[in-house]
């Protein structure tokens, strides 16, 4: 018997499976946080002097490189966490668990959505830890708790959208090494070719141009705005627009690939 309630029930079942896996293997939670943590703790010390460059404070609105950089760490956490999403999918392909699920009446869309929501959940957890750590280190978020909530929402949606990349790669290659190697290319180059790490004015001209087309810039700018200056709805709107575009592309591609995996 199929009822309308089956659909949310299926998604909840898949979601709870992934959350359980997250709890069972804490490495799944820390995996994508190690690098951002190193950045947070070391780079901000090493590059403290960047804040002394004339014009830094006028451009960024803060005299602390740590505060400026915290947005980059948040975005980096989201990007690395998103690349982790495909790995779970590859595991399921390799172990035969995906086939096992697909042989049951559970909807294909529930398998994907349950996973996507759990990815969003994981990203929120990870970014929360980073923000808490930032607070300890002395990063003040001027917009307070509502601003933090908005940052988390943005991080979640951006992470879900970005995780479509690694899930797509995972379903295409069906191999964990390739998934990791290819997905990682979407982390650091995209981060350095954005306004996340340096104020736009400090970037080389061609990087400035690229950063304008890089969705990472818009999310980083919006997050940073919420941390340093306050609510700038233009920035926030642009960020959500960028997320929407990325999400539309990656989730369409992933869904297509997921359905095509049927024919293989």
């Amino acid at each position, binding site marked *: 018997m199929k009822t309308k309630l089956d659909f949310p029930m299926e998604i909840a079942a898949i979601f709870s499976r992934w959350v359980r896996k997250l709890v069972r293997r804490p490495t799944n939670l820390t995996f994508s946080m190690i690098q951002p943590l190193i950045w947070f703790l070391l780079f901000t010390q090493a590059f403290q002097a960047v804040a002394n460059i004339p014009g830094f404070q006028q451009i960024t609105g803060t005299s602390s490189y740590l505060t400026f950089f915290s947005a980059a760490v948040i975005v980096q956490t989201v990007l690395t966490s998103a690349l982790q999403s495909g790995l779970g999918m590859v595991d399921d392909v390799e172990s035969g668990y995906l086939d096992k699920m697909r042989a*049951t009446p559970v909807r294909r869309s529930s398998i994907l959505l349950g996973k996507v929501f759990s990815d969003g959940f994981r990203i929120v957890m990870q970014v929360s830890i980073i923000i808490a750590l930032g607070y300890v280190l002395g990063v003040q978020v001027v917009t307070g708790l509502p601003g933090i909530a908005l940052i988390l929402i943005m991080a979640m949606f951006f992470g879900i959208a970005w995780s479509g990349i690694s899930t797509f790669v995972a379903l295409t290659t069906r191999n964990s090494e390739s998934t990791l190697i290819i997905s990682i290319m979407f982390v650091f180059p995209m981060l350095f070719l954005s306004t996340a790490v340096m104020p736009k004015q400090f970037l080389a001209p061609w990087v400035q141009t690229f950063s304008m087309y890089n969705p990472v810039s818009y999310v980083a700018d919006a997050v940073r705005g919420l941390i340093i200056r306050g609510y700038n709805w233009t920035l926030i709107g642009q960020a959500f627009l960028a997320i929407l575009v990325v999400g539309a592309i990656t989730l369409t591609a992933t869904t297509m690939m997921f359905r095509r995996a049927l024919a293989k």
Partner: protein
Amino acid sequence: MADIIIVSNLVKLYDPDIRAVDDISFTVTQGEVFGFLGPNGAGKSTAIKVLTTLLKKTSGDVKIKGFDVEKDAREIRNIIGYASQGVGVDIDLTGRENIYLQCRFYHIPKDKARQKANDLLGTVGLADVADRLAGTYSGGMKRRLDLATALVSDPEILFLDEPTTGLDPQSRRAIWDHIRALNKNGTTIFLTTQYMEEADQLAHRLCIIDNGKIVAEGEPGKLKGQIGADMIRLVVKGGEDPNIISKALNTVSQIPGVKEVQDCTKGGIDCIEGIVIYGADGSNLVPLIVRSLDSAHVEIDNLVLAKPSLDDVFIKFTGRQMRTDLQKVPPKAGFRRRR
């Protein structure tokens, strides 16, 4: 009994033109254990994946209990259970959680799912380790858990893809017992295997599949019967003496029912030493051979009766050994020439 699975002219091509399943047709009767026997890469898993709605066929027609495998995939998924070749359990979940989750995939309500998990863990003998992570289970335990998860919906048809590959004999026997018990309760079982012994033990009927094609089909006993001959190895005392050998040869070849006699001193297929005798009914031939040799005053040193195995069936239909690791055994390809 009705045909619950009807497969007609099933073809599955992989890009660019690998004919994984190459025009096969067969039917499975409700209530039987049906085996797909073949070596690695024969197309067994591809076929089972098409039947379980996991893979789109290239052409042909597959009906499961009257449902079309592509148009009515959903209805089919409701009545089948499937255990994949890999172990389809989540190693980060406990045995109980694995079964519970599987129940939820079939929309079984929570309380019933809990009950079901308890029952099934007992059935497959995992009650003691129910709350341990499946990752800590042995290979045999994982397979039993996989089997249990395939049973949550009380499937009418159970698909098992190489259920015992890689297991030790004891675990294998445990799985066999479960399969037999399930079948006794009315579950139709479709299984693939690369083990002759497994097909022989479990399957009421089987298809031998090689290079995507069905090369033989029928009951294991009848297939073995098609080999047409039992083999009797005979070593006589004083066999170095050509006179004694020729006397023995003359004697046994006159026994009614003996189809062919080979003198191994002259070399021959199946030869190790002495004489090899082929006949339709080996167990009746043995006393006749003993008596006639006795009256001809030829003393027997050693006499062995070998019934044909499914291995022999495979060789007969494909011209080669099924498992490459057994290739060390002298090739018996000549079996075909003899008849």
